[in-house]
């Protein structure tokens, strides 16, 4: 009780100091709780939704003409395939007009929304009047700004198809730009109309058995199809899709955790410094307390209790406040991932977010306060400090310097340890500030520096030419005195084993200035090779 009172008195004595400390801890706990809740709930929510919609583990698209019983049997016979179904779809390289204010190239799979599905089911509320409508995934509606009722135009092979967004579809097969494919779901008549213009392909949705490796299964199916001479137009698997869709969230969690760690490290350093200061300042009182019969551990506790108390309360407040920020953050993540979930109170995450900073503070405060054990009451009362100077640096009598300079030198020499520590802190802080300043300049004020350095020259303007108008656009741009360089390229979806990406194809890459050169030895041939960066144009 006495210790608690003494701790409380310490708390009252330095309210301002503890307030600033509490704010730092609250921020730490807030950031940490956000990171932990997202880390613990995003993946689980994704998997839950995946199960709810009975999403396929592997999807393969092949030409409709190659869809035969033999191919179907071949896929079904692949080890690890538990269930499968197929449907007619239309695959198109589409440009979505006015996607968040710009044209958006995306390989799009058009579906008949009424096709029966047992795998890759959709969560959708059908609109009353959907004749000219299209159902779009969350990514399109949230990121692209296509709310229900708004028009959406797909430009495909020179034809523009304009629909009204009937509603948003909850699906887990595709998701966002990173997955390389996106779905669009048309009512039956609209689909047939679309298919008549652009043709159809066959999509196989495959459910893997519980013990199957999804990515291995995808490779095995691709190999089986290749053996039969079947062209795989596109293939995807849920593991890659999940990684892609949750990538920003994972990155955000890592950044938040790193940030929380840095803030915590700063607060630990501050509390340590303050406790040492408190001990130095209150040395006499501690000596008196010892003389009265207080043990060292009792006095240590009275020093640690205020920090533990402030740390715990602030961490609870910070963790609590994080729940106010989480919905907004989850919305930001939903916009980029095309998958929305509502973070809920997570006792484990909150317990960690409260206990970790509080525990760290208590441990470091205790370590700092342990020096109280060395306080001898008699010395404390007589004003003799531990580690007091024993050497008279720069004696005034003999030092051949002006008195003021000598006094300054004396002061510096008498607290060499503190000065070295302060110097080290100043160096680290200056380094961090310089790094942050340079980064801020290159991200906010002159972002081209960073982007150009990382890969290639960033275009100032991107134009998508209408069919047959490329020559005219090229001439216009070349004639414009403000144009420095023009690169003509086409966006092409490329599938590879385990994923998809969009590649740029150009007849003349000499206009591209890449700054990164990868060099190494080809593991197959042993020959040295250079790849992808500022190669002479004739080696492309």
């Amino acid at each position: 009780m006495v210790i608690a009172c003494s701790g409380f008195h310490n708390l009252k004595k330095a309210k301002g100091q503890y307030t600033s400390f509490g704010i730092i801890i609250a921020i730490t706990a807030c950031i940490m709780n956000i990171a932990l809740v997202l880390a613990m709930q995003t993946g689980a929510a994704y998997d839950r939704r995946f199960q709810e919609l009975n999403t396929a583990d592997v999807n393969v698209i092949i030409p409709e003409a190659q869809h035969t019983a033999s191919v179907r049997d071949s896929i079904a016979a692949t080890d690890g395939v538990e269930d499968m179904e197929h449907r007619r779809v239309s695959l198109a390289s589409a440009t979505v007009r006015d996607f968040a204010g710009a044209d958006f190239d995306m390989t799009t799979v058009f579906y008949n929304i009424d096709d029966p599905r047992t795998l890759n089911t959709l969560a959708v509320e059908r609109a009353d009047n959907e004749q000219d409508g299209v159902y779009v995934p969350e990514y399109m509606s949230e990121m692209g700004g296509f709310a229900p009722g708004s028009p959406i135009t797909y430009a495909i092979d020179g034809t523009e198809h304009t629909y009204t967004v009937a509603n948003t579809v909850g699906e887990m097969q595709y998701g966002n730009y990173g997955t390389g494919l996106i779905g669009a779901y048309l009512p039956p008549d609209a689909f047939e109309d679309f298919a008549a213009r652009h043709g159809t392909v066959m999509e196989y949705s495959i459910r893997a058995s519980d013990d199957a490796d999804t990515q291995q299964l995808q490779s095995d199916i691709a190999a089986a199809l290749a053996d039969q001479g079947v062209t795989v137009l596109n293939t995807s698997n849920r593991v890659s899709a999940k990684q892609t869709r949750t990538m920003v969230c994972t990155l955000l969690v890592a950044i938040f955790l790193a940030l929380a760690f840095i803030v915590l490290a700063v607060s630990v350093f501050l509390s340590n410094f303050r406790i040492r200061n408190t001990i130095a300042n209150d040395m006499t009182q501690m000596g008196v307390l010892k003389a009265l019969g207080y043990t060292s551990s009792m006095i240590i506790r009275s020093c640690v209790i205020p920090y533990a108390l402030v740390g715990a309360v602030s961490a609870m407040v910070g963790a609590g406040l994080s729940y106010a920020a989480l919905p907004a953050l989850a919305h930001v993540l939903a916009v980029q991932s095309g998958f929305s979930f509502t973070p809920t109170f997570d006792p484990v995450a909150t317990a960690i977010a409260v206990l970790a900073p509080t525990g760290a503070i208590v441990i470091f405060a205790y370590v700092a306060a342990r020096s109280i054990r060395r306080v001898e009451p008699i010395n404390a009362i007589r004003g003799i400090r531990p580690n007091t100077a024993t050497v008279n640096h720069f004696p005034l009598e003999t030092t051949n310097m002006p008195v003021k300079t000598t006094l300054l030198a004396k002061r510096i020499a008498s607290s060499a340890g503190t000065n070295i520590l302060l110097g080290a802190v100043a160096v680290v802080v200056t380094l961090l500030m310089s790094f942050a300043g340079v980064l801020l300049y290159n991200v906010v004020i002159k972002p081209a520096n960073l982007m150009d350095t990382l890969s290639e020259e960033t275009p100032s303007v991107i134009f998508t030419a209408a069919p047959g108008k490329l020559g005219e656009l090229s001439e216009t741009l070349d004639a414009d005195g403000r144009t420095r360089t023009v690169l003509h390229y086409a966006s092409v979806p490329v599938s590879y084993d385990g994923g998809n990406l969009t590649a740029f194809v150009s007849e003349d890459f000499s206009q591209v200035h890449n700054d990164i050169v990868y060099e190494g030895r080809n593991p197959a041939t042993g020959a040295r090779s250079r790849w992808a960066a500022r190669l002479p144009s004739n080696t492309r």
Partner: protein
Amino acid sequence: MASDIVISARHMKKSFGTGNNIQTIYDDLNIDIYRGDFTVIMGASGAGKSTLLYALSGMDTPNGGTIEFDGVDITKLTSDELAVFCRKACGFVFQQIYLIDNMSLMDNVLAAGTLVNRSKTQIAERANQLFDLVNISPQTRKNMPSLVSGGEAQRAGMVRAVINEPTVLFADEPTGALNSANSTAVLDVFTSLHQQGQTIVMVTHDKKSALRANRVVYVRDGQIFGSCELGPYREDAARTAKFEEFLTQMEW
């Protein structure tokens, strides 16, 4: 004078410094403190009066010898064991008072009182009795140390020192920082406590303060150079003369 010994120091050594810079204060000092006595330690400046006081109380550790306090060799105790031992055995009054500045006078007393296992009511009751004894009003008891006079603070310091009914009350120049009126008030409290049976060991260089004791020991050259039995305190010219004569013998 009671005859039983409460503190007995034997062959006590105490020195400061290291290497070639060692200053020896005591080399082979022996002293007994008797229960119920008001013992005053006097000596020239730098003679080691306070060092002796703090060694006898266990607050400072001698370099050699033994100090038996109520049968316990306190030189063998660890820091924490000594702290626990001192809660009941020792009370301290310092020259600079050293009340804890963020606690009221009453809280300062209770903070010491609650170290001994008693109910808060009992402690508060005794604290109030002691505050009455030292003539500190109920209102002043609630004041912070910075808001009371030096004399009031010192008297509160005395209440804190005796709240746990210590075996021995140690005082280091308790009137050194007080004016004449406050000194007298504080000394009156010491006398009153002594008359109630409190054992007191006090360091002073003030003759007026020393006269309150029934026994005066004089420290010189690292030894107990002499001691004088004055008997119970009273305003008595013969007693004062005896004391003066003792000091003259000690070449004070």
